[in-house]
C-alpha cells in the first residue's frame, strides 16, 4: 500500500497524471473531427486533379469513427506515448539504486512489482477512458450515436489489451538498463502484435492485440464472439507469465 501511494504521489509530482490524460483526450478528439472535416480538408488542400468529392458520399457512422479511434489513434500514437511515458517505471529505480534499497526492507518482490503495474495500469485506464469518452461524445454529436452498452464492452476488451501493454513495458523496464532500448523493443513488439492481429485465427488466439480487434468488432457489429473470451484468458495468462518472469529476474538479482 505504501508503495502504491508513493507511486501515485510520484506520478503527480512528475505531472504525468496531468499531461497523460490530456494527450489521450486530444487523441480521442482527433479521429471524429478529422473524419468529419475530411471532405472539407481534401477540398481546401486542392487535392490531385481528377478527384471528385462526392457530396452525397455516405457519411461514416458513429460506430466506425469510434472503432477507428481505438484502432488508429490509441493503438498507434497512443501506445507509443504510453511506452515513452512509462518506460522508466522500474528502470529509473533500478539505475539510482532505489529498487535495491526498497528491497532491503521486508518487502516481497511481488508487492513491489504489483504496485508498479497496478498504479500505472489504473492511470492508463483512466487516460484511455477519458479519451474514449470524448471520442464517444464527438462521434455521437458529429455522426450517429453508438449504443452505450456496446461502447462499454468495447472499452472493457480494450483494457485487457492495455493490461498486456503495461505489463510488457514493465517487463522490458526490468530487463534492460537503457530507456532507449526499452522504448524501442516495447514499441516494435507491441506494434507488430497489433499489425499481425486478424491475419490468422491461430496467431490471433495467442496474440493479446486481438483483444483490441475484438473491441473494434464489438463496435462495428454490436455482438460478442466466442473467440473473444479465449483471447482474454490467453492474455491474462501471458500477463501472469510475464510477472513471474520479472519476479524471477529480480529474485536472482540479475538487475
Amino acid at each position, binding site marked *: 500500500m505504501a508503495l502504491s501511494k508513493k507511486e501515485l504521489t510520484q506520478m503527480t509530482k512528475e505531472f504525468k497524471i496531468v499531461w497523460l490524460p490530456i494527450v489521450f483526450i486530444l487523441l480521442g478528439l482527433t479521429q471524429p473531427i478529422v473524419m468529419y472535416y475530411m471532405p472539407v480538408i481534401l477540398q481546401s488542400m486542392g487535392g490531385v486533379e481528377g478527384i471528385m468529392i462526392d457530396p452525397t458520399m455516405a457519411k461514416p457512422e458513429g460506430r466506425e469513427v469510434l472503432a477507428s479511434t481505438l484502432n488508429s489513434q490509441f493503438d498507434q500514437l497512443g501506445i507509443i506515448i504510453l511506452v515513452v511515458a512509462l518506460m522508466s517505471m522500474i528502470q529509473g529505480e533500478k539505475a539510482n*539504486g532505489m529498487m535495491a534499497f526498497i528491497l532491503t526492507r521486508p518487502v516481497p518482490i511481488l508487492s513491489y512489482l504489483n504496485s508498479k503495474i497496478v498504479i500505472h495500469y489504473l492511470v492508463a485506464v483512466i487516460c484511455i477512458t477519458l479519451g474514449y469518452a470524448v471520442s464517444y461524445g464527438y462521434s455521437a454529436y458529429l455522426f450517429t450515436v453508438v449504443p452505450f452498452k456496446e461502447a462499454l464492452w468495447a472499452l472493457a476488451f480494450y483494457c485487457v489489451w492495455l493490461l498486456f501493454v503495461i505489463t510488457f513495458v514493465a517487463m522490458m523496464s526490468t530487463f534492460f538498463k537503457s530507456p532507449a532500448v526499452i522504448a524501442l523493443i516495447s514499441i516494435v513488439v507491441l506494434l507488430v502484435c497489433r499489425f499481425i492481429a486478424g491475419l490468422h485465427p491461430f496467431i490471433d488466439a495467442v496474440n493479446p492485440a486481438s483483444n483490441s480487434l475484438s473491441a473494434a468488432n464489438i463496435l462495428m457489429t454490436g455482438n460478442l464472439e466466442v473467440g473473444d473470451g479465449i483471447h482474454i484468458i490467453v492474455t491474462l495468462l501471458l500477463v501472469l507469465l510475464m510477472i513471474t518472469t520479472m519476479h524471477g529476474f529480480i529474485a536472482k538479482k540479475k538487475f
Partner: protein
Amino acid sequence: MRLDIKNITKNFKQKTAVHDFSMIIEANECVGLIGPNGAGKSTLIQIIADILYAEEGEILLDGQKIALMKNKIGYLPQYPNFFSWMTAFETLSFMGTLSGLSKNELQQEIPLLLEKVGLGKEAHMHVGTFSGGMKQRLGIAQALLHKPAFMIMDEPVSALDPIGRREVINLIKEIKKETTILLSTHILSDAEEICERFVVIKHGYKIEDATKSELLERYQDSAIFIRIRQEDLKWLTIIEHLPYVKKIESYGDGFKIHVYHLEADAQRLLQHGLDSQVLFLKFEMGIQESLEEIFLQLVV
C-alpha cells in the same frame, strides 16, 4: 545477533569480486571491513544486505537466512539515494511503513530520530535540497528507524568533510552501544576510532582478521628508536658494523636501529653508547607502527 558468513564467492563476468570469504560477527561486536578501493568491500556488504546474489556460500543471522531477517537489519548504502521529492519526514515514514511500523509509532519515533541525527530543523525540507552529509545522516536515520539488531554500513564517512565525518562518527559510537555493527571503509583512522576488530580484504580475499591490539602486537618491530646529539652522529657509523645491528635507518627526527633480539641487544647497544660517551636524547624500545602502516604493509 550473530552473523555467520560462510564461504561467500561472487563473480562478475570474468572477475571474481569476493573469494571464499568467511567470518563470524558476534553480538555487539563492531567490525571494520577495510581494504583499498576495488577490494570487494562493497560487493560483500551488498551480499550481506541481500542486494547482490552470491554464487556460492550463505549468510546466516542467528541461524536464519538473511532474506528472512530483513527486519533485524539496518542498511546504509554507500551513496544513500532518496526520492528527491520527498521531505526527510516523508522518506522516513515511507521506509518505516515498508518495514511494517504503524502510523502511531512513526509519528512518535521520526521526530526523535531526526533530532538525534541532527536533522530536526530540516524535517520538512525536500531531500533534493540536502547536502551529502545531510543525506548520509538521513541514511543513518532510516537504517535505525526499525530498531535493527544489526547495522551494515557501506563507507559511512568516506564521502564527508571533516565536520560531517566527526558528526557521523560520534553518531555511530552512540549506536554501537546497543547494536552489532559492520562497516566498511578505506580510511583507517575512522575505523580505528569506531571499531575494535578489523577485517582486511584485498582482491576479494580475507587477508587479516584481528583486534586492534593483536594487530599492533603482531606487527611490532624489533627496532630501537634513538635520538642523539648532532656531534654524536659519527657513533652511528661505528655501531653500523656491530654484529647484532641489522640496519639503521633515519626515522622522523631520529634513527631506527633494527636488531635481532630486542631486549638483549638494546642492553648492549645502550652500554656501547654510554662507553662511547654518547648522550641519548631519546631511547625507545620496540617501536609500534601505526595501523596505517600495518594496513599499507598488508595491502600493497
